[in-house]
Structure formats: C-alpha cells, structure tokens
C-alpha cells in the first residue's frame, strides 16, 4: 500500500485562502447567528461559493465540475466548519453529488450534476443525517414514492431530492414532496422531515445501495475535515480569550489548570487532522477508504465535541450566552457526532474491517 499524502498542497492552501476570505466577508459570527435565528440557509453565500468552484471540486469537468478531488473538497469543508456557515454543502455538494456521481452513467444523473455544479440548484440525499449502515425507508408503490424520512440535512434548501427507493435512486422535485422543517439541535445546519405521498420521480439506472454507500463514505470522510475546522475554531477562539481575560490579577491563560486543557485539545487536533487528511486522501485515491473514513469519523467527531465543550467551559459565563458564537459550534459539533454514524458505529465497522471482533 502506498503512503497517503497527508500534507496540504500549495494549491489546496490557495483554495483555503480564497474560501476563508469569502467567509470572512460573508459569514461573520453576527451574520451566521442571524441566519440561525431564522433557520434559513444563505443562498447568496452559496452562489458565491459556487462561483469559486468550491461546490463541485470533486466532480469531473465533463460532468460540469472542477475536476479536482476530495482532498480539495475536504479543505473547503474545514473552512466551512470553522465558520459554521449556513450553506447546504454536506447535503448538496457532498452527499447528493457523491450519490449521483456513482450513477453518472445515467443521463438524468449527469444533467442533475451539471445543474448542481453551476450552482443553479441544490439537492440533498434523502436519508436521516444519522445514517451510517441502515436501509432506506421510502417505498415504490404503484409507480409513486411513499414514505417519510426524518431529520434530513439541507432538505429545506434543496430544489432536488435524491431518494433511494426500491433498489434505485430517484430524482424528485422538492415541490413533489412535503418538506417540513423541524426545530433542530444544530441551528446552522437544520434538518427537516421529508414526506412522499405517491410522489412522481425519475428513476436512475444503477444500484441505490451502492450509490448510497458511496455517498455515506464520502460524506463521513469529508465530515471529518469539517470537524477539524470546528475544533480549530474552538481552540483558536478559546486561546485568544484566555490571553485577554484577567481574573485574580493575571491573564487566566497563565493558569496551568487551564493551559493544560488547551494543550490537550491541540494534541488531539494534531491526530484528528492527520486522520481527516488521510480520509480525504483515501477518498481521492480509492485506497483503503473504509478504514480511513471510519478511523477519521470515530476520532474527529469526538475531538470536535471535546473542543467545543472546552470552548464553552473555558469562556465561563460568556460561553453560555446566546450572543457568543460558541454555542453554534457546540451544536454543530454535537450534531456532527451523530451525523453519518456515531463514533461507536464507526468503531463497530472497524471491528470487522481490521479483524478485531467482539
């Protein structure tokens, strides 16, 4: 097995800088919080990301994308995690796109990918965001789709729904289904329930099971980079705060009891970043993908949650307020821990993959 490339390339660093500039302009904490209040995504920011090419990096050029790869997509996910920007990146650019790429021999799939790549529409894969190894619940009854899927990410923003049912993927216009937003733990990536009552659809050629599997692997692998971005923001923000917050006549960051906790977060982040880069590289090369993704998910999910916990705690009272953005990261980190398989589910997958049976 060849060694994975775990560095960031110069091109990837350049991409990161462009995305970071855009997010600094358009997704500062106050703006993100305002969107969170209304549980709306930010279509203007999404168009700007699409214009940068950041929403279709791993889509081949002949299918309307940028012809880069998952390594680059992961860098964007890191920056989006660090800003908790309310955009349908995971649902549209990662999950739905990966599922459609898997069946891209189908003309309708290719047409949908082209429209996604240009930023003209967004889509989502209609599975519960918590899915890792469960089976689809939507049925095909008399040629129409029937069933309800709870807690679907980025469904409210989606123009197009990609639905696994009856062994195939189906394309459904959002207007042909009932999308009901629910009050969500993660206020910057709210979920919605999606109900089909005999909805008309376009069935795509190819196995839904394989396409969903590919999408969940890509989603879980890229999510690890988002989690690294969340953890990095939590660490940076807490370090900055502890340098300027004085109690007992000293900056509180000079107390060992606090600085050791941040040193531990930093240490965990070093490991998490290596695991997340490895997952992105594995998705790009196709080498050892399942192990790489489950290692990254079981580690990065926990590291992001821990970093968010420390961020809230070490900010003291201000960290508990609605006004301070720490809660947006805590909510995202906790929801991400459930998303696409909890750490425990990924460890269970690894038990099989690396021959450590229970």
């Amino acid at each position, binding site marked *: 097995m060849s*060694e994975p490339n775990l560095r960031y390339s110069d091109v990837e660093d350049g991409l990161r800088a462009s995305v970071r500039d855009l997010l600094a302009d358009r997704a500062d904490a106050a703006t993100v919080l305002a969107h969170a209040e209304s549980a709306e995504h930010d279509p203007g920011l999404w168009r700007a990301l699409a214009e940068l090419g950041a929403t279709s990096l791993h889509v081949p050029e002949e299918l309307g994308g940028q012809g880069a790869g998952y390594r680059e997509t992961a860098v964007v996910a890191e920056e989006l995690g660090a800003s908790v920007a309310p955009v349908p990146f995971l649902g549209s650019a990662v999950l739905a796109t990966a599922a459609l790429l898997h069946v891209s021999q189908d003309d309708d799939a290719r047409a949908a990918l082209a429209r996604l790549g240009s930023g003209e529409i967004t889509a989502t894969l209609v599975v519960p965001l918590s899915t890792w190894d469960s089976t689809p619940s939507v049925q095909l009854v008399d040629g129409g789709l029937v069933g309800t899927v709870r807690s679907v990410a980025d469904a409210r923003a989606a123009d197009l729904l990609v639905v696994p049912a009856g062994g195939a993927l189906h394309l459904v216009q959002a207007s042909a289904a009932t999308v009901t937003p629910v009050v969500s733990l993660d206020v910057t990536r709210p979920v919605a329930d999606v109900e089909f009552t005999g909805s008309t659809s376009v069935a795509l050629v190819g196995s839904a099971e394989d396409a969903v599997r590919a999408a969940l692997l890509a989603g879980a692998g890229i999510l690890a980079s988002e989690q690294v971005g969340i953890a990095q923001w939590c660490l940076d923000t807490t370090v900055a705060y502890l340098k300027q917050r004085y109690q007992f006549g000293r900056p509180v960051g000079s107390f060992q009891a606090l600085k050791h906790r941040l040193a531990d977060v930093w240490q965990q982040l070093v*490991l998490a970043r290596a695991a997340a880069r490895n997952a992105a590289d594995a998705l790009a090369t196709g080498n050892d993908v399942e192990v790489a993704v489950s*290692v990254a998910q*079981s580690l990065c999910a926990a590291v992001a949650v821990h970093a968010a916990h420390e961020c809230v705690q070490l900010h003291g009272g201000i960290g508990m307020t609605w006004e301070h953005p720490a809660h947006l990261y805590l909510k995202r980190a906790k929801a991400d821990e459930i998303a696409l398989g909890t750490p425990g589910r990924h460890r269970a997958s690894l038990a099989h993959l690396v021959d450590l049976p229970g």
Partner: protein
Amino acid sequence: MTDLRDRVAALLAEHDPATTDRLDFLRARFDAGLAWVHFPEGLGGLGAPRGDQEIVDAALVAAGAPDNNPRRIGIGLGMAAPTILAFGTDEQRRRFLRPLWTGEEVWCQLFSEPGAGSDLAALGTRARRDGDDWVVTGQKVWTSTAHTARWAILVARTDPDVPKHAGMTYFVCDMTDPGVEVRPLRQITGEAEFNEVFLTDARIPDAHRLGAVGDGWRVAQTTLMNEWVAIGGRPMPREGGMAGVVAETWRANPERRTPEAHDRLLGLWVESEALRLAGIRLRQQLAVGSPGPEGSAMKLAFARLSQALSGLEVELLAEDGLRYSDWALTRPELVDFTGRDAGYRYLRAKGNSIEGGTSEILRNIIAERILGLPSEPRVDKDVPWKDLPR
C-alpha cells in the same frame, strides 16, 4: 535525486556490502556524504533536504548494506549530533561526528539530576575552571547507555551567582575519565536500563566546551528540541507499535473478550492509527523543510496510548496477567517498549510520560510556545542560582 542515486550506486560499486567490513562500509558511507544527507559536505552529508535521506536509506537497504544500528546510538544521533553541528567548532565536528555516526563511539546525555528534573535549569553539578581544563563535580541521573558510552553531552553550572538560566555551560565529557563513576539505576521493571553518574573532579579540557561559557541553556534547548524530532520521526506500519501487540493478544484470546474491553480496544486502536498517520504527516512536512511542532503532540499521545494499551493487555490476560517474567536486575542494551511480556510493557510504559520531558512540562511548552498562552508567574527568574530555595 538522480545525483543521489548515482552517489549511492558509486558507494556500492566501490564498497560491495557483501565483501566489505561493516565498519569500513559505514565509514565510506559517511565520507560519501550519505550518512545524513542534510548535514554539510565533509561531515557525512551533502547539504541536501532531510527528506532525501529516505531515498538513500531505501536504496542501501535494498542492496543489503549494513546500517549503523541507529537504535543503539539514538542519543548520539538524535541529540548530540545536531547540537555538535549547531554549536561545535570545526575541529569538534570533525573529531566527533564520524565515529558518532558509525557507532564506534557511543554517546550518552548528562542532563537530569536528582534535584533538577523538570526544572532542568536548576541543575547543580559544578564546573570550575582550572587552567585549560574544567573540573566537574556533581551527580547526574537517568542516563541511558552511560555504561557503554565513550562520550557524554553534559550541562554544568559554571556561575552560581547569576540567575539559573544564565550560569550554565555545555560540555562534551569523556566517560573514561577517572572522575566519572557509573552505577546502574534499577527501575520498577526490575532491570537497570539507566544509570546514575557520579562526577568527582572529572576533568574536561576547555576545547571540549560546546558554545560559549554561560550559554549552556540555549545549547541544551537545541538538544532537547531534536529529541522530540527524533521521537516523532519514525515511520511505522499500521499496528506497528503497542496497538499491534494488544490486537494480537485480543485475536489470540477470544474467550477473554468482554464488550467493555472491546470498546476500549477499538478506541485506542483508532487513536494509535491516527498517531501513526500524524507521524507520516510530520515526516512529509520535514521532507519539504517545513517541520511543524507536531512532534510534541505525538509524544504526549504516545505516552498516553502506550499506558492505556499496555494496561488493557494486562487485564485481558486475566490469570496470566497476574504473572511477571523476571524481576532480575539485567542491563538491556536496547530498550524495546513493546518487547518482553505484558507486565513489563505495562510497567515500562509508565516511564513514557516522564522521560524526555514529563507530559505536564510538555503541556506547558505546547501552551506557551505553540499556543502563545502567558507563562505562570516565575518567582525564580531573577534570583541568583545560589539563593534559590532547595
């Protein structure tokens, strides 16, 4: 790189490993600049990027060439050599580096003292000037390879009247000097991998001083930073360390598995794999000349994982976990954290969070130097060393 491969080919052509004496081959490799390619020409290197070493090593391994048994001379390679390179005179570099690298001369490190562990800068071993020599008296501890070493890197106090960081000087000490006495230091595993070193009027010529008088702390920092690079720099296959040992125990003992142990094992296995990946990432960064500070994170994680994994293994072994191989005082030449039995691994791993900087000191360093957090108020900073409470 083609040039590098040509040099390797030329070395192999002139000194066929199959017929050349091991030491002759190693000397020839050093003289060809293929020992450590990032060192300067004439000192075993070519002034090439550090990452090119992998090309050389791989080509020489493939040709069946002998190596310098780097694990036996780790302190020389990882700590003494970079310090001699950075602070040594031309004459010191020429005298010491070649036999250091070939392993003809083993090195040890005389830094820690019974009264100066984490607070290394408080050390009290005294060096007094006497003509062209320094006369050194004091006690050092936790010195691995002292009993086989020809030379030591030594930090001693040359001026007790200034604050602690300012009054130290760095020397190369001859371990065969009659004023140097080495005694084994038995540890919780039963064996004596380390030593206590007693210095009683040991003489060191001034020509064996590294760096300026009073600049010993700065020189020692170079040594210690390189220690972490060395610890973090080893490439490893998946399950190459303690995780692999425990995984094998797990696979071999299906009747001893419990759900709780399974969850712990998988969690530790994942972190060990991530630690391995972090090592690959660090090495890839080093290879392009942009080493990050990740080595200190890796040491922290390594210590924690070794201890948790080895503790889990003893539990898994149930009635066999109640036994121990041998408490006899032996003197291992090589330290193998994953060697011997589970009980040994468990006990030896306790040292991983103490040796080479305790995990607590490491967290201070990460917090202050990497994260830039303010230091604790320092009561000893401006006090002459001789007036410090002890």
